[in-house]
């Protein structure tokens, strides 16, 4: 009997200890769960009995245990969705997988097919709407983005999207996607739409390259012809100048020669007219002086002596 009494006592003591222990643990858990930390890039949304009560900024905060629930939303983080490819390992040299043709293949306004990869960067700007207005906002954003991109591309020709229209497409998609986000009130702000690869489908790529080749051929043909032109024409122009200058030279010789001759003749004529006989004689002698030394055989014949041949 004494044994039983003792046993009961020890049980009582033990039970008290256990209960105290349990109470202590519960209290510690409750106190610990009253504190929470909002990370730098997040804000915390407090739901009290399931109803939104307030938003808290990064730092240490207190809440009512069991009653308040905290949802953290990364409002400062730039989030990203990739279309037509996935980055499998980001880093200095990122690795990509590109076999999402159903995502990237679309029709252009001229009913051709184009393959387009792009990125959407966005932020959850309104954490309340982001959490509570739309279920699975990321999935929704992907659907919206694909639909909008196809609308914009569908209004342009293949060549426009491939060349001049690239930037414009990105801009339009950003605008229209933002409009749609506002309409859905999903709290998302579209920061950037970036076009990655824009290509014709693989099956027709070769023919597109051929067009580039042909474009270069065209330039080549034209440049060759221009080069030939530039090689020949300036030379011909120089030669023409030469011909003309030579003619001018000939003209100077001709005119100056004639004028010189005449001046000389006139000068002599003046003296002749003053004393014709003397001058005549002098001219005769001068001429003989000049002529005779050049004659090899000279026959001097008397003026009055009959003919040359013996009579």
């Amino acid at each position, binding site marked *: 009997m004494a044994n039983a009494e003792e046993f009961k006592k020890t049980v009582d003591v033990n039970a008290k200890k256990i209960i105290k222990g349990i109470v202590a643990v519960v209290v510690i858990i409750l106190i610990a769960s009253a504190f929470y930390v909002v990370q730098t890039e997040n804000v915390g949304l407090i*739901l*009290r*009995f*399931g*109803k939104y009560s307030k938003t808290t900024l990064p730092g240490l905060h207190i809440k009512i245990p069991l009653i308040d629930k905290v949802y953290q939303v990364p409002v400062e983080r730039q989030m990203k969705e990739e279309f037509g490819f996935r980055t499998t390992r980001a880093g200095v040299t990122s690795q990509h997988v590109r076999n999402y043709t*159903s995502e990237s293949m*679309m*029709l252009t*306004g*001229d*009913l*051709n*097919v184009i393959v387009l990869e792009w990125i959407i960067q966005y932020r959850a700007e309104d954490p309340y709407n982001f*959490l509570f207005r739309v*279920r699975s906002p990321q999935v929704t954003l992907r*659907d919206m983005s*694909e*639909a909008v991109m196809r*609308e*914009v591309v*569908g*209004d342009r020709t293949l*060549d*426009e999207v491939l060349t001049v*229209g690239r930037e414009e497409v990105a801009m339009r998609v950003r605008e229209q996607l933002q409009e749609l986000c506002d*309409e*859905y009130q999903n709290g998302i702000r579209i920061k950037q739409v970036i076009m990655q690869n824009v290509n014709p*489908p693989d*099956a*027709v790529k070769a*023919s*597109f390259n*051929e*067009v580039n080749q*042909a*474009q270069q*051929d*065209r330039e080549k*043909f*034209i440049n060759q*012809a221009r080069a*030939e*032109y530039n090689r*020949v*024409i300036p030379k*011909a122009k120089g*030669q*023409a*100048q030469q011909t*003309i200058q*030579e*003619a*001018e030279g*000939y*003209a*100077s010789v001709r*005119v100056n020669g*004639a*004028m010189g*001759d005449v001046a000389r003749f006139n000068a002599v004529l003046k003296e002749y007219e003053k004393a014709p006989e003397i001058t005549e004689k002098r001219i005769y002698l001068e001429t003989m002086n000049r002529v005779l030394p050049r004659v090899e055989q000279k026959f001097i014949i008397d003026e009055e002596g009959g003919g040359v041949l013996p009579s």
Partner: protein
Amino acid sequence: MKNKKLLIIALLVVVILIVASMSLFILNETKQSVVTRFGKPIRTITEPGLHLKVPLIETIHIFDKRFLEWRGDPSQVTTKDKRYIWVDTYARWHITDPLLFYKRLRDERGAMSRIDDVIDGETRTTIARHNLIELVRITNRDATVDPILDIDSSQLESIEYGRRGISKKILEASTERVQDLGIEILDFRIKRLNYVDEVQATVFERMISERKRIADQYRSEGQGEASRISGERQRELQRIQSEARRTAQEIMGRADAKAASVYS
């Protein structure tokens, strides 16, 4: 004695907790609910917070309050101009009247299958009534011509309704058919649209031949321009040479005449 008192208090606390947990419920910010009494709908609650119900007798059925996603099954359809295409659609919807929703559709799965039927059907019939171009374009803007690629690449065909117009038609028709189900379809859009494989092959062929034509045009343009320049070169050459000869002759002739006049 003391122990007995403690035991009674503990039991009381437990009972109170059980009763409270059975008669109180928390409705989250994203949820709405219908309260039924033995299966009979009594009231709907859309306000988040702590709410009361009669334990054991009342049951609550919780539904989502947010915009919910719906994705169509990609399906092959034919347009009015007999083009075979794959169309992939999506829509957003939400539960507007939880009571009606509970009565007509029971749960989300029921709603999804009903929306499948309605939208897929409307999509099919509406697309069959329009040409492909109406599904692709949204406005009647003119294509800008590339200054480098200065070739009138295929012009854009004009449209009457456009993709948005057709989406709107499908949305309106579908909305009408689900309005007595306690749900509302907010937005319907064509997400993807592609040719079926066989058609795609012929489209690719057409694209290739189109590029070939452009390439040929470029080459022929280049050759034409080259010929023109070469002709211009010939003409210039002959003009320069003949003009020089003529001028030279004129100069020499004038000089000869002057000389003759000086002598006489």
